[in-house]
């Protein structure tokens, strides 16, 4: 079941590692970043900020804003994790975009959820660490034109969107988010696009609950 994430995280992790090696940062930083931060887009962002010599505070604020979407993920996992043991602390730490999508699209029976979710999170993080270390090492020893490999992130989001859409009961939230995303991409300031679009989506979802649930 974690195979889609394996196939997403290994190339994506490699893309991250390759970028890191192009900035002449030693490979073991790829390992530590993937171990302690464990956030795909967030780690790419950090590399971009390293490259532009941003201050540590700027990196902290930007990472926080980018990853604020994880708060929405957590919100939808509170009741699921509620009765789990200590393992939930690791699961909360590891609630990435991809892990979240997997936990939301599976059909695991309630009594197996705790162990299954723990293993899913741990497997996902190992793929991510493995991919990023391979990429960082490869980038130093194999000369190759790696430009464009970061598109694997976009493709992964597309695939996860389709999977989540197929699982959802309502169709209107999907259509509305297409419109919000498109408008946001074309007209919102780049640095605030994510948080603005997500806030609008959440507000519309809550305010128009009756309309959205009607006639699907």
């Amino acid at each position: 079941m974690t195979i889609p994430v394996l196939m997403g995280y290994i190339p994506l992790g490699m893309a991250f590692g390759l970028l890191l090696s192009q900035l002449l940062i030693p490979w073991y930083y790829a390992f530590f970043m993937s171990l302690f931060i464990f956030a795909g887009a967030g780690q790419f962002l950090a590399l971009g900020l390293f490259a532009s010599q941003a201050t540590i505070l700027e990196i902290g604020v930007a990472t926080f804003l980018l990853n604020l979407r994880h708060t929405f993920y957590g919100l939808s996992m509170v009741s699921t994790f509620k009765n789990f043991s200590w393992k939930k602390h690791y699961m909360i730490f590891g609630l990435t975009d991809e892990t979240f999508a997997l936990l939301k699209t599976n059909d695991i029976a309630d009594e197996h959820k705790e162990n299954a979710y723990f293993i899913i999170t741990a497997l996902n993080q190992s793929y991510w660490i493995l991919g990023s270390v391979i990429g960082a090492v490869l980038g130093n020893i194999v000369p190759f034109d790696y430009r464009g490999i970061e598109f694997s992130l976009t493709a992964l989001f597309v695939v996860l969107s389709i999977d989540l859409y197929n699982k959802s009961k309502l169709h209107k939230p999907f259509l509305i988010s297409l419109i919000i995303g498109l408008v946001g991409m074309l007209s919102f300031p780049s640095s605030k696009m994510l948080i603005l679009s997500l806030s609008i989506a959440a507000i519309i979802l809550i305010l128009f609950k009756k309309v959205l649930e009607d006639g699907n």
Partner: protein
Amino acid sequence: METSYLIGAISLAAFVTYVTRIIPFLFFRKKEPSAIIKYIEWNMPVMIMVILVFYALKDVQWEVYPYGIAEIVGVLIATFVHVKFKNALLSIFLATFTYMILIQKVLV
């Protein structure tokens, strides 16, 4: 790049990332989820993921050559291959491979 800079930045990034993930568990710990929370649980994820697709494309320059053609083709390939074959590996690989060929060899 200095070691102290990298370690400081990575530590802070790790901390704030964890904060974004722990917030809801600190504030909604004891309550039974209401109908509205459950409704958000079910419907917010797909909206987040769709918006992330557009977020990933936000720095494309649509007005100048090559007008985001590589990105559009890549997204279309990922979509059609995934709808048809439901195989994440195939969809991601074909889309990324085509994108790399396009930006490196075709749309130069």
